């Protein structure tokens, strides 16, 4: 038991220190998401936009995936590919990364690639990091197709698990010293009851 308390406390301290910047990032981006009216962070109005058309020789016989990779390679762009639409004479898709978005339209008959790009300011980039996981709500079986999306999602999973550990470890530490803090049990119960109300009870009444 002494060993458990010793390592639990040590891990709580050092994992907390390790996560410091991640907690700040997700806290600030969470506040930005919940306060869209904060003017200093109004990133969408301040986005930079650019449009361009590039002529390109498109080899016949390429399937949609091959064409997509070829165009992205030639334009030297990378990111999470979404909104893919394919027709007989055109191919549309979007390439996104936190703070950047690019809609591409490939005209197969003319051999041109039109791009509409936008870049958000630093607040926009911070905010997008909060939600950037490559998950398509309408197609939950679809996997992230950009390796960096997968890395970031893995990092988010890791941070979430580490935060769960920090919570559990704090209860273990508190339990040992609970008698020294008169109102601590009441405070913990108040937190639990409030969250239990929001997660379970609210939909029953």
């Amino acid at each position: 038991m002494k060993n458990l308390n010793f390592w639990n406390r040590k891990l709580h301290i050092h994992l907390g220190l390790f996560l410091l910047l991640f907690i700040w990032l997700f806290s600030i981006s969470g506040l930005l998401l919940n306060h869209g009216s904060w003017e200093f962070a109004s990133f969408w109005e301040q986005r930079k936009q650019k449009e361009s058309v590039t002529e390109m020789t498109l080899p016949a016989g390429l399937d949609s995936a091959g064409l997509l990779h070829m165009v992205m390679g030639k334009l030297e762009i990378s990111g999470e590919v979404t909104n893919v639409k394919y027709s007989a004479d055109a191919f549309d898709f979007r390439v996104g990364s936190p703070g950047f978005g690019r809609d591409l339209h490939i005209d197969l008959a003319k051999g041109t690639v039109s791009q509409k790009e936008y870049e958000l300011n630093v607040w926009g980039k911070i905010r997008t990091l909060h939600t950037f996981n490559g998950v398509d709500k309408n197609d939950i079986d679809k996997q992230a197709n950009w390796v960096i999306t997968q890395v970031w999602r893995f990092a988010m999973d890791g941070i979430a698990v580490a935060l769960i550990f920090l919570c559990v470890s704090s209860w273990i530490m508190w339990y040992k010293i609970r008698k020294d803090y008169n109102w601590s049990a009441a405070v913990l119960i108040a937190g639990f009851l409030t969250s239990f109300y929001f997660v379970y009870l609210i939909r029953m009444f």
Partner: protein
Amino acid sequence: MKRYCALLRSLHLYFGLFITPFVLIFSISVLVFNHPGFIDFLSPIKPSTETRTKLDKIPYDTTDLLTAKAIIEKLEIEGEIDFINQNDDRISFPVKKPGLKTQITVNKHTDSVLITQQNEGAYRALTFLHSMPGAHNVKIRGNSSYIQVWRVLADVVVYLLLFLTISGVFLWYFLKVERNFGFFSIALGLIIFTSLLLIIF
């Protein structure tokens, strides 16, 4: 500075204990957001139920939100109106509570109402709470009292979490036995954090 340690330790403990259940909501919901397929396997969404009814005296000559609010009041349904679709023939909107989605569609010519209710379960309740109030439909967000309360709670949790990080650093710094290794933990976090941002941008 050491004399502030006892006070800071108490605040760290009390604030920390209070927000741990909320931090669990935010953390578990991250896993649900990132792995929706697994959550569907773990907790499949139950089939929705449909109810039909008829209302009278629905005020269409006002804002979309007030019309929707009048409808849910007559139907005795409570919750946050997520967004509203309205045209000449019908008005349709989802009313949400954590883990419970009620879709309401009203035929404006006949005042007949179709209510579709879906119990989405506790996991999706967590993701709903995580995403509220959020960045979408800002103009109508907070049209229910529980979201107004949750908005304040979510902010309080974030500010307390920020306080906990600062007080935690302070408390660690005065623990001589952990000081050296603590610098290593901060440096490791800094390196991984910076590396991740560098590969993303």
